[in-house]
């Protein structure tokens, strides 16, 4: 297979720079006369600012000081709703809420200065849990603490409950999760009224940052420029947060007239940036005497933190996925995002689905156990297939065969023989082994008509030397987007991949392709890139610069001749919503996603009944993804996502105190090391999706959804305890085993 073909593991285009330590992340960059910035934050979770005291014995002359009074436009960080303040001026709604910004050229003196500013506050009693928020004892957001709420209804749940053979009800919980990208958040800004604003930084969504800056500074769009620098991991943690950081850095730059660098250290990053939404789910499910699902009544609640930020959309995706891969004729999903006095929770790979899918897939096993049915048999009776409708009433268009997928996964993992073997071997053994699985799907692209609203655009430009520039605002953050886009273009144009250059996202150079989120980059934007490349080829052929069958040399010549005669050769491609998508946002019904990727994950665990540690010994990840464009990169995404999800399940726990993480360092917030993970075995199936590039569907978030329930199911198989909560730490296993 040739290097530029789809399905070939083309080498990561920016790998050499990364390996040699030459890739430039934001903290590697400096400007002459640059200042360093710092943020002074609230020490209380809820209350009022009474006074800001600057130590009179400290020399503040050389410091740039910014408060909310320095904001030229609106004091908010523009997102979906605009309730989050850029800098607090009166009310405090969470610990670590930013109040004052300072800058100085000496970063060590800056650190000392931070301790010389005292924020005098009047404390109010905070709301610190979903339960507390629901009780409405204290109202901290809107009229009733409910940031967002909606119902998804299908059929008649009440009627179905009356004729049920068995009704099973249980609650499930998932905790917060910190992204812990190895590179912390950071921005450099330069700003003046005449020249406008330029920011550089670690980010996923340059145009989100652009939007936030236009609003804060009340400047025309053309005066604001946002440039993404090499980004050391993001996972959703750099989707909306960089907007805040950019606003802060730009305010300091605006006031000082100098470049300002604002980079968080690890502790500040963990304390003040977004986390995965903690969740609470209640499932009440009715089945008939054959084990067929009759009705499901689901409450799905998220802890949104102090401001709305991404909560409405996380709630949406989580609620839509709460029905999972089953066909159930009657469903009622009550979804609510509640406000609490903690730093706002935000986007994190999976975006609500890992939370609801954990609950669902654990619940399915719980019901199967109650019915004395093997979990795989219970699922087979209830799997959805093409032609049937999901919880939102979406008819599955693409061919789906979960039965075969499940059989394959169970065979790959030797599930059946292990169930028998472990049962025997566990007798009298200190180490108990178990195996468990989950079946799930993940909707790719924005929910409902979201892609239509985004109206993403890309451009392809051919230079006179025959080089192709790919211009999109999609950001590389390790997932391999630079390489995949290069492959798509070189495959369509039949040129060497080294002739293709994916231009670094810079809002002054690239069109708005929407944010790099929602497993949409390859499927939606990659398709636009493919279209643009096809249009470019077609144009050159139509205008007789190329024949249908051309060589690479001829292609280069064609670009040269075209640009000589006509000037710039640039082709745009804009998103058009497929006609088969019909969505009702208010009712939350219809085609929630253009398509889904489907998966079965199997986890093999061992639980040490003396130390209470649970370890994943083996993991099989099987998924149907449309088309694998680059096997190495695709596997890398699955392996990395599974690793993060194993962390979510067994290692990562935020110890909340007064709405703030007590464990705010890498030594106390634990993620898996190389010794803590098995080799993750990845397998792909391909059922090409009509609208994806070469049939590819989104896969970035899929691997985050399946591991938690698979592991919890495996632990239950090992020690007989059904954990309805994650993370599952040794102390939890100890407590359950000894009760």
């Amino acid at each position, binding site marked *: 297979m040739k290097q530029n073909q789809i399905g070939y*593991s083309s*080498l*990561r285009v*920016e*790998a*050499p*720079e*990364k*390996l*040699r*330590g*030459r*890739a*430039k*992340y934001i*903290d*590697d960059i400096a400007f002459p006369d640059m200042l360093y910035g710092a943020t002074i934050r609230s020490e209380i979770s809820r209350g009022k600012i009474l006074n800001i005291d600057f130590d009179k014995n400290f020399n503040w002359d050389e410091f740039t000081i910014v408060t909310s009074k320095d904001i030229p436009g609106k004091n908010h960080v523009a997102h979906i709703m605009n309730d989050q303040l850029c800098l607090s001026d009166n009310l405090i709604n969470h610990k670590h809420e930013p109040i004052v910004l300072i800058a100085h050229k000496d970063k*060590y003196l800056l650190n000392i200065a931070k301790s010389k500013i005292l924020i005098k506050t009047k404390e109010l009693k905070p709301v610190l849990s979903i339960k507390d928020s629901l009780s409405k004892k204290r109202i901290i957001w809107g009229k009733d603490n409910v940031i967002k709420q909606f119902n998804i209804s299908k059929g008649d749940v009440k009627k179905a409950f009356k004729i049920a053979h068995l009704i099973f009800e249980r609650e499930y919980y998932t905790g917060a999760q910190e*992204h*812990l*990208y*190895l*590179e*912390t958040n950071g921005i450099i800004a330069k700003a003046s009224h005449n020249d406008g604003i330029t920011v550089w930084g670690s980010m996923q969504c340059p145009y989100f940052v652009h939007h936030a800056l236009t609003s804060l500074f009340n400047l025309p769009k053309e005066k604001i420029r946002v440039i993404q620098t*090499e*980004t*050391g*991991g*993001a*996972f959703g943690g750099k989707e909306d947060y960089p907007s805040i950081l950019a606003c802060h850095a730009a305010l300091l730059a605006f006031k000082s007239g100098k470049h300002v660098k604002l980079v968080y*250290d*690890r502790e500040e990053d963990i304390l003040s940036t977004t986390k995965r939404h903690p969740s609470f789910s209640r499932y009440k499910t009715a089945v008939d005497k054959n084990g067929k699902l009759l009705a499901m009544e689901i409450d799905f609640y998220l802890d949104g933190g102090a401001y709305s930020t991404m909560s409405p959309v996380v709630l949406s995706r989580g609620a839509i996925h709460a029905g999972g891969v089953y066909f159930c004729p009657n469903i009622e999903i009550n979804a609510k995002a509640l406000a609490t006095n903690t730093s706002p929770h935000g986007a994190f790979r999976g975006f609500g689905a890992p939370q609801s899918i954990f609950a669902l897939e654990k619940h399915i096993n719980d019901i199967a156990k109650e019915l004395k049915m093997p979990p795989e048999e219970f699922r087979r009776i209830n799997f959805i297939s093409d032609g049937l409708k999901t919880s939102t009433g979406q008819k599955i268009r693409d061919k789906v065969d979960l039965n075969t997928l499940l059989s394959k996964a169970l065979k790959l993992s030797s599930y059946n023989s292990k169930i028998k073997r472990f049962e025997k071997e566990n007798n009298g053994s200190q180490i108990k082994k178990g195996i468990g699985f989950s079946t799930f799907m993940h909707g790719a692209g924005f929910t409902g008509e979201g892609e239509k609203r985004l109206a993403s655009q890309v451009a392809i430009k051919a230079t006179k030397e025959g080089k192709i520039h790919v211009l999109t605002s999609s950001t590389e*953050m*390790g*997932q*391999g987007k630079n390489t995949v886009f290069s492959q798509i273009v070189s495959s369509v144009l039949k040129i060497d991949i080294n002739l293709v250059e994916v231009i670094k996202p810079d809002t002054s150079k690239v069109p708005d392709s929407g944010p790099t989120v929602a497993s949409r980059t390859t499927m939606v934007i990659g398709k636009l890139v493919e279209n643009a490349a096809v249009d470019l080829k077609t144009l050159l052929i139509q205008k007789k610069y190329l024949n249908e069958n051309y060589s690479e040399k001829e292609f280069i010549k064609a670009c040269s001749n075209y640009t000589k005669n006509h000037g710039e050769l640039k082709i745009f491609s804009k998103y058009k919503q497929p006609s088969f998508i019909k969505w009702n946002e208010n009712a939350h019904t219809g085609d929630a996603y253009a398509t889904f990727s489907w998966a079965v994950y199997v986890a093999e665990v061992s639980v040490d009944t003396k130390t209470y540690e649970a370890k994943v010994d083996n993991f099989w990840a099987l998924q149907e993804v449309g088309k694998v464009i680059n096997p*190495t*990169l695709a*596997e*890398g995404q699955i*392996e*990395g*996502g*599974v*690793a*993060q999800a194993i962390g979510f399940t067994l290692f990562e726990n935020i110890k909340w105190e007064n709405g703030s993480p007590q464990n705010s*360092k*890498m*030594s106390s917030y634990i*993620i898996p*090391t*190389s*010794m803590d*993970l098995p*080799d*993750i075995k990845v397998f792909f199936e391909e059922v090409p999706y009509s609208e994806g590039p070469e049939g590819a569907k989104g896969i970035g978030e899929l691997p985050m959804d399946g591991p938690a329930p698979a592991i919890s199911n495996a632990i239950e198989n090992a020690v007989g305890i059904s954990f309805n909560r994650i993370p599952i730490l040794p102390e939890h296993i100890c407590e359950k085993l000894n009760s």
Partner: protein
Amino acid sequence: MKENKIDIKCTINGKKYDFSVPPMLRLIDIIRDIALLKGTKEGCGEGECGTCLVIFNGKIINSCLVPASQVHNSKTTTIEGIVNTHLYKVIEKAFIKKGGAQCGFCTPGMIIATYDLLTQNPKPSKNEIKFALSGNLCRCTGYTKITESVLDAIKSIGAEN
């Protein structure tokens, strides 16, 4: 405010440096801000993540934990100091082929750890590889392709010999 400073003479990547700094300034700051070598990264500042890993007086160490007072008369090698070696080139080829780098932030530290391992032990087992790299956190890869990359490098070295 006059700060206490100490005089340091040291070698980084074979180049001699001579400077005066506060005694608790860290080796990572000396590498990044004085020697201006940006390949070594700061991921946590407390010796947990390994992104600041360098070779210090022949042993790998987290440079964020070494105070300037210990740097006097020392020899440090950073990622920039090994890129021209044959061993690095074999490692680089393997990591590119096997997909051992994604976002790249943990990568320089990971390469230093790999380089050190293969210098001490040219044929480590899979478990020995995992143990040697357990001080380098990665959030992107799940370590599977990192281990595969190191195994591939070992294979290449074996083929050469």
